[in-house]
């Protein structure tokens, strides 16, 4: 951990570099980080609020849907880039001794930097539509923390898997699609048919996303059981993936 802390500036600089490289040859550059969530929010606003032409309940649904989509994109970005983070750093790994955990952490920080403008869009939207209460801030903060821990855990696991099994990167988009449909993003968690509940229970995304979306969109906290499962999933996955990563790290240089 001391070595990782010693590389904190490297993690931050890598995240900045990743964003720069991703937008290197685009005219608007990093402005897209704000424009993309804004355009997505406007699209959903038009679909839910204007075309449907209903009142306040649709404002809640709009916030629920948009916050869910943004949270899912954050998880999806973190996992996709995290899975390639070690293999794409083969040059550095073969050049100098470096704690490899910095690479999934840098990928996570990159995903966070992409997600931060979306948070601003969400805040502006919720203030404009009067859907946010002060009491919602605590569940929003806690569920955000759980989303970050979960993103770290799964992306670290994916990074190890990708080193030893290159099929991982191809399987991840498929897995993410399944996770999207079994997470309460496009529908409310309470609307889930009974026969789908087992599938959702197994989905680690389900619980923090349900808490996150409910806080943004409905102004009411989810049940304590939901928090318990969300916390359990996030912590267990983060701990197991860290242990697996550290125990496999010594073999990375011969497999990247």
């Amino acid at each position, binding site marked *: 951990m001391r*070595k990782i802390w*010693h*590389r904190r*500036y*490297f993690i931050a*600089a*890598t995240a900045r*570099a990743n964003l*720069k*490289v991703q937008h*290197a040859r685009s005219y608007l550059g990093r402005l897209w980080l704000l424009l993309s969530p804004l355009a997505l929010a406007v699209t959903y606003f038009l679909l839910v609020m204007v075309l449907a032409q209903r009142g306040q309940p649709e404002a809640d649904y709009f916030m629920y849907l948009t916050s869910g989509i943004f949270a899912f994109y954050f998880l999806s970005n973190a996992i996709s880039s995290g899975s390639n983070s070690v293999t794409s*750093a*083969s*040059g*550095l*790994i*073969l*050049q*100098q*001794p*470096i704690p490899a955990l*910095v690479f999934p952490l840098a990928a996570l920080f990159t995903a966070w930097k992409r997600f931060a403008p979306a948070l601003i869009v969400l805040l502006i939207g919720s203030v404009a539509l009067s859907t946010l209460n002060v009491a919602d801030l605590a569940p929003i903060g806690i569920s955000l923390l759980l989303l970050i821990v979960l993103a770290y855990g799964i992306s670290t696991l994916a990074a190890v898997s990708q080193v*030893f*099994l*290159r*099929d991982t990167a191809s399987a991840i988009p498929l897995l993410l699609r399944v996770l999207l449909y079994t997470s309460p993003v496009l529908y409310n968690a309470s609307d889930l048919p009974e026969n789908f509940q087992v599938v959702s229970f197994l989905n680690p995304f389900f619980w923090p996303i349900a808490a996150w979306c409910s806080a943004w969109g409905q102004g009411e906290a989810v049940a304590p059981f939901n928090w318990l499962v969300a916390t359990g999933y996030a912590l267990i996955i983060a701990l197991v993936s860290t242990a697996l990563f550290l125990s496999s790290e*010594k*073999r990375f*240089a*011969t*497999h990247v």
Partner: protein
Amino acid sequence: MSRLTDARGKDEAHGRSCVTIRDVSFWYPPSGIRSLGRVKARLQGHTDARLNPAVDSISLAIPHGATFALVGKNGAGKSTLLRIIAGILRPQTGYVHVRGEIATLVGLNMAFRRELTGRENVVLSALARGQHPQDIKARLELIKEFSEIGEAFEQPIRTYSSGMVSRIAFSAATSFPADVLLVDEALAAGDQKFKEKAERRMQDFISNSGSVVMVSHSGRAIRRLCDSGALLERGKLTMVGAIDDVMNEYESQ
């Protein structure tokens, strides 16, 4: 900083050695380990032939302040041993103890990102080594000056020639203090004039009481820079001694 990779879990008194290697062996994993073809072959009863070790039961002590060359033909295990000393590769048996801060000049151009400028790449590679941003900032102009690439320093690396990339990589890697410098063919960086400049910088480093472990195919550079060395053959250590003796033995093979 002291690094200990110890299969037996023991730290020992290493005298005045900056690098102590005890009974180190290393095997690369068989290729194709992740392919379906290999799974199929296994199901059909074929097993992987055990590869010869790239480094085979090597024990060696490199004294503090030495300029030490690892000499041998291609495939002798020189670069693998250097990477084991650096802590990049972990040996399956034995241990390596390095006293002090390590700097590596290994695969100089590998870690650069093409879309980033020379300046950004230098900063990123120094941060990866654990350097503090303020120390990097203080040395950036010196690195730019030493590399002699002028305003190209602010341009993306993708616009550089391979010689320019080598120059900037060498400048960056040798601009920060270290106790042990590990060098793998890095003196091949740039044109003849730059090679001479690089050798002078190496000599400066050595005279500042650092230790150097070097792998190079340039017999002339090795004789000029190094005072002692080891000869490797198919992963085994066959000779350790004064550099002229080691080079004479190598060249007679």
